[in-house]
């Protein structure tokens, strides 16, 4: 397929494999902060093409995985209400909350629908005026513009029966949080190409300066990732630190101004909890006061007593790059995609699920 096959070419892969091996002289650890990249790395066996001295860590880049338990519990509570149609992207449905998940709510009679865009929720709200429609607005900067657009449309169209359960997070504070951690092992980052397509990469420059660490804005195809790793290793070996843009076919330094404007108009920066990681200051997006009428948390006056129960799941450590899925004693034993202990085993972008599915590598 055009524009895809070119980026999955074995000869080019071989070239990068050799270039990386020729460049590297000492052990380095590189973290990608995008679930799509994690998925590609494991699906295409990219680790197999890298020298042993290069370790890849999978950061908190899966939007499903980092959505905090409280928000899942709120989603489950709302979805179970009478006269509510709860709309979500598909892979949120299996994520375990404290007691259950959205798929189970659906099986018990809740009207839970998989949608492909927040705009679908607008259509549903318009066609079901006697129902309250709720859209689960989760994700990184990539989903934020479309979600913001849907929220603005809802206000413009005076749709009184549509609201949004917000769990939007942003990447740079998460990178900073990892770098501030005393357990930090990361020498260089691959930044998420699609996040940067929206936001540009100016905001990564102060991070590079402050922490003296290379960041390479990288795409999702195997060739993108190999080239991104190569660029990162080249910086590490030469002692250079800067933001480099591997994904230049999509990313401009300033990002997409229209998308950034709509995010700005609807959302403001707020503190957010990240599942398994805890609260990171200024790491999320919340609705500006002009839009709070469309916040599902206000509309449904949820009174959920949330209590984090002890769990053997180490997804927090995995999301911070401190541990790898195979280092978890529960991995593939008591924690499987059929019975996930944590969100990283659920979404196909989650590191544990990706390892489970693809990296039981044949020996």
């Amino acid at each position, binding site marked *: 397929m055009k524009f895809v096959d070119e980026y999955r070419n074995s000869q080019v892969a071989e070239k990068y494999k050799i270039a990386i091996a020729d460049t590297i002289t000492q052990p380095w650890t590189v973290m990608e902060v995008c679930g799509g990249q994690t998925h590609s790395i494991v699906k295409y066996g990219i680790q197999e093409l890298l020298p042993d001295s290069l370790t890849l860590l999978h950061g908190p880049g899966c939007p499903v995985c980092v959505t905090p338990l409280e928000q899942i519990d709120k989603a489950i509570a709302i979805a179970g209400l009478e006269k509510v149609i709860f709309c979500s992207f598909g892979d949120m449905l*299996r994520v375990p909350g404290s007691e259950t998940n959205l798929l189970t709510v659906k099986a018990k009679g809740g009207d839970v629908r998989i949608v492909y865009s927040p705009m679908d929720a607008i259509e549903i709200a318009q066609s079901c005026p006697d129902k309250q429609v709720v859209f689960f607005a989760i994700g990184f900067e990539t989903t934020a513009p479309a979600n913001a657009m849907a929220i603005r449309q809802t206000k413009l169209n005076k749709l009184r029966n549509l609201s949004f359960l917000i769990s939007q997070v942003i990447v740079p504070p998460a990178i900073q949080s990892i770098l501030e951690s005393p357990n930090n092992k990361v020498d260089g980052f691959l930044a998420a190409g699609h996040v940067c397509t929206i936001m540009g990469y100016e905001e990564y420059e102060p991070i590079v300066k402050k922490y003296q660490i290379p960041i390479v804005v990288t795409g999702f195809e195997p060739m993108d990732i190999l080239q991104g790793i190569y660029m990162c290793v080249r910086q590490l070996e030469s002692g250079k630190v800067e933001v480099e843009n591997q994904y230049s076919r999509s990313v401009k330094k300033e990002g997409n101004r229209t998308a950034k404007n709509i995010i700005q108009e609807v959302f403001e920066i707020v503190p957010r909890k990240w599942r398994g990681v805890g609260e990171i200051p200024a790491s999320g997006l919340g609705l500006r006061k002009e839009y709070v009428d469309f916040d599902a948390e206000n509309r449904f006056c949820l009174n959920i007593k949330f209590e984090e129960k002890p769990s053997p799941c180490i997804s927090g450590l995995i999301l911070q790059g401190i541990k790898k899925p195979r280092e978890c004693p529960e991995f593939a034993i008591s924690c499987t995609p059929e019975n996930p202990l944590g969100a990283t085993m659920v979404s196909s972008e989650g590191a544990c699920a990706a390892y489970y599915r693809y990296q039981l*590598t044949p020996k």
Partner: protein
Amino acid sequence: MSDSNPSMDEITCPIPLTQSSIITMAHGGGGKLTRQLIDQIFVPAFGNSQLETNHDSSVIDVGFKKLAYTTDSYVVCPLIFPGGDIGSLAINGTVNDLAMSGAKPLYLTAGFILEEGLPIETLFKIVQSMKKAAAEAEVKIVTGDTKVVDKGKGDGIYINTSGVGAIDHTLEIHPMSVKPGDAILVSGDLGRHGMAIMAARENLGFESPITSDCAALSGMVNELIKAGINLHCLRDLTRGGLATALVEISETANLSITIDDSKLPVDEAVKGACEILGLDPLYVANEGRLVAFVPKEDANQALTIMKSHIHGQNANIIGNVEEKSAKRVILKNALGSSRILDLLSGEQLPRIC
């Protein structure tokens, strides 16, 4: 499609609209309206000497030693989709299950569960589609049943078909017959039915419409057997797609399977749709494709036969069977690395971004 068959849109339902244009509970009551459905819709479509005996069961003449016997139930939304409908699916699915034993499908039963309020016109179109599919697969529908459920308790129509087929060969076509060294062939492109249904159901509005591959494979299997291909195993690719079929066969045969990603035929539109939605075409359903295990020396001839068949033009040899201690299905990808294919946990769900 034969020229003598009018298109579905040209056919109108023979039941006068003044009586009832929709299914009511009375259509399942066993009385006059039930009789009317049978006489005016089912018998004219499926008419044959066995069905016309109007008895509780049909008597069929078994002039052969071994029978293949199968049953399957069909639920699909939407009922009519690009490339087929629940009727053609219900015929082809059961015909294909029979064909996978190398049987020549002969007789089918059809059980209908209709939801109150279903337009009779829709039922009529679906029955006509069954008639056409049965004619193409050269099978007779010899007995059937209809029930009606309350509005809201069904999904328009559910159909169950069971079927018998005659086995007129000495091959043991079964996963246990798979041997190390066998070549693995698929009869056509992967994932088209599943993506056609998803695109239609979710109204995804792809520029190039994806049509289902729903088709009967009994003709192709018959040709392979006639040509003397030593078929070790056949499996039609339905729910769970190629990957699921291969994992099941490898587990039963206790052998390792290796397939090559670059040899897998996938239609460009299906590939694109899967890329957009984050789905893996290896796990997406087909309804008119099979995977065949044959001795290496028969592989090229089998491929030629498949390719000469109307439903096998994109057939390809995709891998082989190996004797390894672990019964695994391994996919070699374009980069030269490999990964294991496993069964999915639940359905594939579209990814967020």
